[in-house]
């Protein structure tokens, strides 16, 4: 590593450990917006995943394929859609959410919902039916039996949550278009990294990149240790 890199890394670490208000404000916006989007979306999306896995209704195939398609839509396209919804002439223009955190939350909800629905549907489809039957026949009411099934699927369901959170925490396109990258209000980690890199202020970009890297490591190690404890079933 040459001296320039070393100096930049030192500056980046110093920004983080000196609790630089600007850097930590960006981190705070990122986490609060993404966590809010995840929390609001999680339960309804998982319920939809459960319904798609266990029920048989006309059009189920179409809904499943539409949701899988939505997963692969670029975030800038979702950003454009949300922008058009929230712009003054748009159907949700009266909410005045454009360039606000609420608007960013709405955009990130639209990004993470298909991921949660599709991945949780796959998880519920793979569950051993006997888990549900055993729970019910032992006297558990339906809601306890659902909880028992979710408990059996804790690794794939946690993987779903982590995948959805990673996707919205690191997306740039939608946040940039809907949030507008306003300092202290809607500037989050990915938009700040894009901006600081274009300005040549690499120290702040590296500091924010390190936060994402540490988060990815922590989440994946936590999941890895959980997955390590899960043992395959013999039958």
């Amino acid at each position: 590593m040459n001296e320039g890199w070393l100096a930049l890394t030192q500056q980046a670490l110093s920004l983080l450990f000196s609790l630089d208000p600007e850097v930590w404000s960006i981190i705070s916006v990122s986490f609060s917006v993404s966590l809010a989007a995840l929390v609001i979306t999680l339960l309804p999306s998982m319920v939809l995943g459960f319904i798609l896995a266990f029920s048989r209704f006309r059009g189920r195939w179409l809904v499943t394929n539409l949701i899988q398609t939505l997963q692969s839509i670029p975030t800038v396209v979702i950003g454009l859609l949300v922008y058009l919804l929230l712009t003054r002439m748009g159907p949700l223009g009266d909410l005045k959410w454009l360039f606000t955190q609420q608007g960013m939350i709405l955009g990130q909800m639209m990004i993470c919902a298909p991921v949660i629905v599709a991945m949780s549907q796959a998880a519920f489809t793979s569950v051993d039916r006997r888990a549900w039957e055993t729970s019910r026949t032992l006297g558990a009411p339906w809601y306890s039996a659902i909880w028992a099934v979710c408990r059996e699927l804790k690794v794939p369901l946690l993987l779903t949550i982590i995948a959805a959170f990673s996707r919205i925490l690191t997306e740039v396109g939608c946040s940039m278009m809907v949030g507008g990258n306003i300092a202290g209000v809607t500037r989050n980690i990915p938009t700040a990294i894009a901006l600081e890199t274009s300005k040549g202020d690499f120290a702040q970009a590296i500091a924010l990149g390190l936060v994402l890297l540490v988060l990815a490591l922590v989440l994946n190690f936590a999941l890895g240790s959980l997955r390590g404890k899960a043992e395959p079933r013999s039958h």
Partner: protein
Amino acid sequence: MAKIIAQDLEMRFDDKHLFSAQELIFPQKQVIHLQGDNGSGKTTLMKLLAGLIKPSHGQVQAVGYSLAPWWRSNAIVGKALYLHQHPYLFDGSVLYNLTYPLAFSSEDKAKLSARTEQAIEMAQLSHLLGQSASSLSGGERQRLAIARAWIVEPKLLMLDEPTSNMDKHSQRLVLQMVSDLKQQGTGMIISSHQSCMLTQICDHAWLIDNNKISTNDMVHAAAPTLAVHINPNMLNSMVK
């Protein structure tokens, strides 16, 4: 007396007619040997009576149970306990699996706790309590599943090919628990396509043959009374 009554029962999978029966009564205090060839529908019939699946035609009712809360009022499920041929054990320890149904039982906590300890002893699971349930052998899994059912003292219990994975030691322990349940008045259906030592305690037989279910008393109707008062030496001799 608690019972499950199935009337005008018919089961079909797509175009395939599996079985039909005019009326089946599965009451407490009866132990029924359910016979039939592989694929004749023994498992399906037990799942129907347990409320886990619905019949193509006809109705299944539970009689003699206390009124359930309004959100569970129509449910047959949970009335008759069904044990799979390969019992499902939840991810967790043996103790977790044994105590899983206690939260749903209306019985006195002290009584359930005492029965849990007794079940652990009867099924000889005390040295396995902290172990992961997924690491158990086939016989240990079956013993755990039956001990779990024994704790909640079900009014009706259905055992699907219970001895198919068990060595003689496990069979002996299971026979002891099942005989004990019979003595307590639990009605049971034991499915098996051939006679085994568990079917020796049956006093009625249901046979699925040619898509029809026929019912009759068994010839060795005296056997159950012997079995329930059986001592360990007699149990040993039965498995030899």
